[in-house]
C-alpha cells in the first residue's frame, strides 16, 4: 500500500502478494553472472520489485535489451516474461516493432551507455521521437563494461581511465538532455545507490503512457570505480543531489495521506496513478522544459548530479501506437479473415490494371 505524506514518501511495506496474488519471486530471474557489487544488479532488483508492486502480469511484459553487462540483466529479472537480448545498439528499433506487433504488451528495455549513446544512439533518439510506450532504462557507468572498460560517450571530460593513464577528452553525452530535446515526456535520472528513489521512478515510468527514459548511474565496480572516475560509487554517492523526494501511488491503491500542497506536488497520470514530488532544498518544476535543460546544462558544467524526475510533460503527445491508428487486437494474432482482403478486392485491382 502506497502512502504519501507531506514530508516523505516511504517505500511501501512490501506485502506478501501483489494485486494479482503473485509473490515477489514470480518477478525474479536467473542468478546474475555480473561482478559481485555491480550497480546493474541493484537496478535488476528494483525492476523486479517495481513490476511486482505495480501488479503487472509477467506474461504481459516483454523485456528487451542490446548487448553489454547491462543488457544481460534482462535475464536476471522476470523469468516469466519473454526476453529478447538482441544485438548491440538496436534494441530501441526492435522495441518499435515489438509494440506494433502487440500493442497490449508492456515493454521494458534495458541498455547501457555504450549501447544507447554510441552504437544505438540514432535508434534511441528516433524511438524517443516516435514515442514508443516503454520503460527505457540506461544503466550508465561511463564505460563499456563487457568489453573491459573503454570510455563510453557518457564519460565526463577529464575522467581518468582505470590504471590512471588515459584521460577522457571527449564531450560527454547527456541522454536525459537529448531525450528531452527529442520530445520525450518522461525523463528521469537516478542512481543505483538510491534504491528508494529508483523504485518510485520505475513505478511511475511503468504507468507513463509513452516513452519513459531513466538514466541510472550504475557504477562499474570492476572498471570504473576508482579515484578520478565520475561514475564511481563513491563519487555518485557523494554528489547525488535529489531534486525532490518522489513517491508513486498506483491507480489501484488509495492515496492514504493528505498532501501539503505547499510542499508536495501531485502529478495525476492518465491511468489514475499519481506521482508525488515532495520539495527538498529548492523548488523544481519538472514540467518546465527549459528549466530542465538548463539544470542539465549547469550540471554538466558544474559536475553536479541531480536525480529525480527531471522532465515530465503533463500532456504528452500520442504514443507511437496511437499515432498508427491500428485495430485494438494485437496484429500478431489477427486471423487470416482480417489480414487477407477478399477476392473482390483482387478483382477490382486487376480490373484497374487491365
Amino acid at each position, binding site marked *: 500500500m502506497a502512502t504519501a505524506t507531506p514530508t516523505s514518501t516511504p517505500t511501501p511495506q512490501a506485502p506478501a502478494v501483489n494485486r494479482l496474488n503473485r509473490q515477489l519471486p514470480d518477478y525474479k530471474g536467473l542468478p546474475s553472472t555480473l561482478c559481485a557489487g555491480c550497480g546493474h544488479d541493484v537496478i535488476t532488483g528494483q525492476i523486479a520489485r517495481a513490476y511486482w508492486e505495480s501488479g503487472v502480469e509477467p506474461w504481459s511484459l516483454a523485456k528487451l535489451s542490446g548487448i553489454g553487462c547491462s543488457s544481460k540483466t534482462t535475464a536476471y529479472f522476470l523469468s516469466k516474461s519473454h526476453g529478447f537480448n538482441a544485438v548491440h545498439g538496436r534494441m530501441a528499433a526492435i522495441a518499435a*516493432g515489438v509494440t506494433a506487433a502487440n500493442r497490449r504488451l508492456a515493454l521494458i528495455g534495458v541498455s547501457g551507455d555504450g549501447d544507447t549513446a554510441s552504437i544505438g544512439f540514432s535508434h534511441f533518439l528516433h524511438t524517443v521521437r516516435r514515442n514508443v510506450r516503454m520503460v527505457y532504462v540506461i544503466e550508465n557507468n561511463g564505460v563499456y563494461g563487457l568489453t573491459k572498460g573503454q570510455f563510453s560517450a557518457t564519460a565526463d571530460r577529464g575522467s581518468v581511465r582505470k590504471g590512471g593513464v588515459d584521460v577522457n577528452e571527449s564531450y560527454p553525452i547527456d541522454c536525459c538532455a537529448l531525450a528531452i530535446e527529442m520530445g520525450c515526456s518522461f525523463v528521469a535520472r537516478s542512481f543505483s545507490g538510491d534504491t528508494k528513489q529508483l523504485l518510485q521512478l520505475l513505478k511511475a515510468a511503468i504507468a507513463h503512457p509513452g516513452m519513459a527514459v531513466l538514466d541510472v548511474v550504475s557504477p562499474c565496480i570492476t572498471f570504473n570505480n576508482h579515484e578520478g572516475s565520475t561514475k564511481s560509487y563513491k563519487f555518485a554517492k557523494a554528489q547525488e543531489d535529489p531534486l525532490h523526494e518522489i513517491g508513486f501511488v498506483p491507480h489501484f491503491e488509495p492515496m492514504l495521506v493528505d498532501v501539503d500542497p505547499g510542499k508536495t506536488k501531485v502529478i495525476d497520470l492518465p491511468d489514475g496513478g499519481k506521482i508525488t514530488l515532495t520539495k527538498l532544498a529548492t523548488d523544481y518544476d519538472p514540467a518546465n522544459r527549459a528549466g530542465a535543460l538548463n539544470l542539465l546544462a549547469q550540471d554538466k558544467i558544474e559536475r553536479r548530479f541531480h536525480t529525480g524526475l527531471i522532465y515530465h510533460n503533463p500532456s504528452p503527445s500520442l504514443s507511437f501506437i496511437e499515432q498508427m491508428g491500428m*485495430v485494438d487486437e494485437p496484429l500478431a494474432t489477427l486471423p487470416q479473415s482480417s*489480414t*487477407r482482403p477478399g477476392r473482390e478486392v483482387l478483382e477490382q485491382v486487376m480490373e484497374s490494371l487491365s
Partner: protein
Amino acid sequence: MGTATEIAPSAAATYTGETIVNDLVIEVATSNGTGSQSANLVLMRSIFRMGVPVGAKNLFPSNIQGLPTWFTIRANGDGWIAKRVAPDVFIAMNEESVEDDLAKLRPGAVLLLRTALKGFLKRNDLIVYECPFDEMVKDVDVKLRKMVVNMAYVGVVGWLLNIEMEAIDAAIHKQFAAKAKAAEINVVCARKGWAWAAEHLRKKDPFLLRRLDKTKGKIIVEGNNATALGLTFGGCTFLAWYPITPSSTCAEALIDYLSEHRKDAATGKATFCAVQAEDELGAIGMVVGAGWVGARACTTTSGPGISLMSEIAGLSYFAEIPAVIVDVQRMGPSTGLPTRTCQGDMLKAYYLSHGDTKHILFIPKNPKEAFEMGSRLFDVAEHYQTLVFMMTDLDLGMNYWMSDRFEMPTHREDRGKVLTAADLDRLGQFARYKDVDGDGICYRTLPGTDHDLAAYFTRGTGHTERATYTEKPADWQRNMDRLARKFETVRRELPPPEEDLTGSPVGVIAYGTSDEAVAEARHLLRLEEGLETDYLRVLALPAHVRVKEFLSSHRVTYVVEQNRDAQMRAIFAAEFPESASRVRSVLHYSGDPIDARSVVEGIVKQEKR
C-alpha cells in the same frame, strides 16, 4: 471527345511496300521530369489494347528532372517481349542525348526526328521522318506544352505504324483516369500528331502493327506493385522501410494497398502498421522485433540496404525469428547505379551476415510470380522461423510488364509451430529450441501468451534447447547442426525449379528476370544454330535437388546471370561440387536488362570453343 470518324486513315491504308508486321522495337528519347512517361505508357497500352503482346523498359537517370531518359517498347506477335537492343523506330525528342542517340542507330532504322534537332542528323542510312512536334501543339496553353508535345509523337507514330486511334484514345483515358480534363487535352494532341502525319508524311518503312487477340485478360503492371499486392494478400501486418531506389515504390504501393484494403470494416482501423524507419538498420530491427512477437513483418530495400541489414539478418537466422526482406536489386557494388538493373546481390543475400549463416531466397521472374511468391513469404518465414528474401530487381520492379491476371490465393495461411496457452496447458512443458519433430524446426510461443510457461529468452548467443545461455561446445555445435538440418528441410520443401527438357546434352539455367530473354534465346539458338537446349529456372534457394540432377545430367550447363561474378554459379559450385566443372557462365552486367541476343552470343561463343 472526338470520335474515330474524324480521323484520317493510318499509313497502312495506302502503304504498298514490304511489311514487317507485329515485330518491332520503338525507342523514345526524352528528358526526365517532362511528362514523357505518360505518353510512353499510352503508346505501350495502345499496342496492348490492339491485342499485340508488348513489353517496355524505361531507362531513366538517377536524378529527378532534366536528364536523358529512354523508353523502349517491344511489340511482338509471337510474344517475345524481352529487352531487344537496336530499336527499329526511334523517336528523338531530347537535345542532350541526340548526338549519341543518332550515332547508335542501326542502319535502316526509322527515325522520327523532332524538327528542332534536325541539325544533329549526320547520317543518310536511316529512314527519317522529320516531325515538327512542337509546332503541332503550339496552340496548347504554354504551361502544358512541354508535357503534351509528347502526345504528338504518339499520334504521329500511331499513324505511321497503324496503331488504332481507338486504342490510343482508350489508353489515354486509362492513363489519366482521374483527370478528365487532362485526358481531353492529351487526346487532342495525339490527334494533332496523327492529323499532321496523315497530311505530311508518306510511309517509307516496313513496320506495321495489326490487331491480334493475344492480350485478352492480361494486365499491365510494375513488379513492385505486384510484390506489394502479394504481400497485402499474404497477410502482411508490419512494414518498416527506408526509402531506396528501386524499392521505394514497392513499399509505397504496399502502404497504398494496405491503407485501402486493410482497414477493419467496423472501426475503420488499420490491420497493419507501416513505419518509415530512420535507416535500414532500424527497419530490419523493427521487422525482427515485430516478427518475434508474431506480426507478419517485412521490409523492402536494395543492395546498400541489405549490406546494412547484415548483422540483424544473422540474428534472424540464429535466434530463429521470422522476417521478410524484399530486395529489389540495383546495379552495385557500392551505391552503384540506383536506376539500373542487376542480379548482383544473389550470393550476398544467400550468405548475408558473418559466421555460418544462410537464408531462403525467392526469385520471381515476372509480376505474376512476384505476386504469388509475395503472398507466400510470410508463410515461409513463419513456417521455418527464419529470414526470407524475395530477390527481385529494378527491371521487374520498376518496369511495366504485361502479365496474366493474378489469382486469389487459396492456401490457408501458415503461422508455423506456435504454441498457445492452451497448448502449454496440454503439454505441461516447453523448450524453445528442441527439435521435437526431427525436421530442425522447433516450437515457439509469442510474447504476450497468457501462461507462466510461455516465456523464453531469445538471444543471438549460445543457447540450450531450453533457451538458457550456454557456452558449451557441444551445445553450440548441436544447435548449429540442427540449424543446418532445418535448412535441408527447407531445401526439400521449397518449390522445385521449372524445367523444359528436350533431351539435349546442353543445359541452360537462369533465374528471375532473365527468363524471358533466355526463352527467346533458346528459340533463336534452335532457329539459327540448330542448337536444342534444356532449360531449368531456379525459383528459390537453397536449390532443389532437381538442380543437382540437372547439372549432373548435362554435358554442359550455361548459367545465365545478370552480374559479373557468376554469383549463382558460385552457390551451385559450393553445394553441388560434383558438377561444378561442367558449368559455364553467360553474364550480363551493363545495367541494362538482359536481351536474348547477348545470351545467344554468350552460348554460341563457348559452344564453338
